[in-house]
């Protein structure tokens, strides 16, 4: 870890003597500020917002104030619990990054927003059981049952994030149809969504597997 030199910081802090903090019509709206503070911006929108923030002292001050409010203990204590799906995945390795890419690419766009579970809930996400890691066969997908689930949706992804196969069932397992052929030594990812109420789903972790020694 390297801390910036104090003399550099002092020289830069002098710049505040020249800054005006008046807003302009181009300034960020509150949604953009919130997305920036939470680090949920991506793609072109992120680049546009970043470019504006770099040039606008007013927006930087709103970002600083909003981040401080959100982080303040007395405010955070009163915020109802919110579960949100993260767009910013920690870069803990290629597998995680690939899984993150899959989540982005696989996020359903045409079905409207998926509702999250209510703040206080007993619904437990399904847990993927098999296949996991290096396996000799992946003909059947099995996961833990969610007590209130009405049905389950399984999505199988290739390593590039594209959806390879998707199916629904009321059971806690699915058999891979003969028409879907997995390529040995290629990495695949899968996850299960359990529907607990109308348009309300709980989702398992993304699970990685590859067929090392195909079954005879």
């Amino acid at each position, binding site marked *: *870890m*390297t801390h*910036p030199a104090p*003399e*550099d910081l002092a*020289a*830069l*802090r*002098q*710049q*505040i*003597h*020249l*800054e*005006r*903090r*008046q807003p302009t019509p181009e300034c960020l709206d*509150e*949604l953009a500020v*919130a*997305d920036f*503070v*939470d*680090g*949920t911006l991506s793609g072109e929108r992120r*680049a546009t917002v*970043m*470019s504006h*923030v*770099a040039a606008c002292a007013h927006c*930087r*001050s*709103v*970002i*600083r*104030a*909003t*981040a*401080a*409010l*959100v*982080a*303040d203990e*007395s*405010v955070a*204590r*009163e*915020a*109802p619990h*919110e579960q*949100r*799906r993260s*767009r910013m995945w*920690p*870069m803990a390795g290629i597998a995680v990054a690939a899984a993150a890419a899959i989540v982005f690419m696989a996020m359903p766009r045409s079905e409207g*927003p*998926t*509702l*999250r579970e*209510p703040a206080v809930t007993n619904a437990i996400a399904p847990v993927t059981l098999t296949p996991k890691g290096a396996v000799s066969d992946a003909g059947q997908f099995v996961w833990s049952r969610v007590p209130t689930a009405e049905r389950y949706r399984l999505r199988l992804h290739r390593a590039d994030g594209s959806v390879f196969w998707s199916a629904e069932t009321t059971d806690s397992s699915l058999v891979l149809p003969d028409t879907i052929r997995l390529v040995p030594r290629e990495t695949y990812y899968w996850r299960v969504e359990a529907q607990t109420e109308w348009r309300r789903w709980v989702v398992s972790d993304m699970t990685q597997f590859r067929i090392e020694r195909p079954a005879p």
Partner: protein
Amino acid sequence: MESWIAPLAAGRSEAAWDLFIDRYRRLVFAAIRRYTTDPDDVMDVFARVCEALRENDFARLRKYAAQADPTRKFSTWLCAVIHNLTIDWIRQRDGRPRLSAVASALPPLQQRLFEYVFVQQRSHVEAYELLKSRDASALTFSEFLKELSATYRAAGSSKRGRLIQELTATPPEPPAEPTDADPAMLVERHAVLSDVMQALPDEDRVAVQLYVMEGMPADQVARALGLSGAKAVYNRVYRALASLRERLERAGIAAGDL
């Protein structure tokens, strides 16, 4: 999904409002109290926040609902709204008497500084030039900075202190001893630094601006920029400053000259 969104979309606005206010009333109060501890202020700002959220058939809430997304945190958006409304309230008609009350307790010179910097939101250098031209001030820039620093301290120590601090930038550090710094030199330095800052990628520039100039905690900068943590922010800022220093040296300017 926020529970108030469905009834709002279904045209049951008052039912949506009841759900919203029941869920977020405590957060709104907590956020406002972070800016002012005066009970009258708190109630007035709370009323203003409610009024603003209900305006034009709940237009603000409808706008959020139209873009609601499971990756978003509603409470962060609400904090941004509360911040903006609170600042607007004190700068506009309803809060202005409170602002004047703070200013009236200051010596005349600091009242002028308060007006220029906190109310009109002018830069420090602009305020200095206005003092010289309009108020015939004979202060050197060094003396001006000491007065400005005293104004920040006096305004910030009132019970509306945090609210007032939000109206402007990070308080300036007063010079420890008289210096020969003058605004013209600051403007010149600013131009040089701006030029070299422009050469940095936007993300590096924003990291430097938020961490160094805004004084945001490193963990909050990390969250905003999607970095792994405070250490990643220190490293990024360090690298950006090293790059700035190198560019300045190439332009024949030593670090000590800034």
